């Protein structure tokens, strides 16, 4: 049984990891940190390098949680990527960070978080960044 944590190098992402690790410690479950860049471009600012993922794992160790970092590529279907990970790892919970976005911004760019919320087959825990 595992907990999936959506991670991007942002305050929201850090908050999600924080919450995910806490849940992992409480339930004694493995945590899979999902850092999924968009397929296509050679560079994605959302992808973290090896140093950053090592730091995340260190945080997990400090919290006493067994964790791994996965970096699958996604197309226009982040929700599906999460779904297939849920199936593959036997996920019981998805943790994602939410950021505030204006109505117009949401209309133009859409909201991945919303689609994960709607399409996920397991409970989704959403957290906000620390102010």
């Amino acid at each position, binding site marked *: 049984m595992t907990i999936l944590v959506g991670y991007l190098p942002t305050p929201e992402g850090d908050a999600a990891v924080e919450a995910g690790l806490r849940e992992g410690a409480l339930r004694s479950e493995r945590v899979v940190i999902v850092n999924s860049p968009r*397929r*296509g471009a050679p560079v994605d600012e959302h992808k973290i390098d090896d140093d950053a993922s090592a730091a995340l794992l260190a945080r997990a160790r400090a919290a006493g949680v067994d964790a791994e970092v996965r970096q699958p590529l996604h*197309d*226009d279907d982040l929700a599906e990527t999460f779904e297939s990970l849920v199936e593959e790892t036997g996920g019981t919970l998805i943790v994602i960070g939410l950021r505030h976005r204006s109505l117009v911004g949401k209309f*133009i*760019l*859409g909201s991945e978080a919303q689609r994960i919320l709607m399409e996920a087959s397991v409970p989704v825990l959403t957290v906000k960044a620390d102010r």
Partner: protein
Amino acid sequence: MPITDPLEEEVAEETRPPHAGPVPQVVAALVALAVGVAGAIGSFGLGLGELTHPGPGLWPFAISIVIAVLSLTLVVTGRGLQDAERFSKATLLTAAGLVTLILLAALLPLIGFEIPSLLLVCVWLRWLGKESWRSSIVISIVTVAAFYLLFVLLLQVPLPRLI
């Protein structure tokens, strides 16, 4: 150049998909052979002339013979080459892309460049590029508008158009 080949191969090797078997190699060589033979027959018909007064067919005839002979060599020796790529499911993407290009060319003189271009960009983004609907539509509209601005208004190119 012997000094440099290993370097380049090492880097380049990993990008290529699995190589195709001997069949495409032989087919390609046979197609080239056919071109050579057809060229030779065609240029023979044009008249070869003589060296003092070369006819219009002499030069193409000579080239065609070279093509034919080399292709024949390739048919025989090229079986084991590993430089061809396998045609995979991804090839269908290219085929689809090609169809949209032909459609654009066919529709251009009939209904102007705007709608075919819009559809082409949209199709490429949505299905070949797997962009979201939203960005596909926004980018294709912006692109066509930019082309209109550039080709029609700035460069004054006589493109077939509606507006």
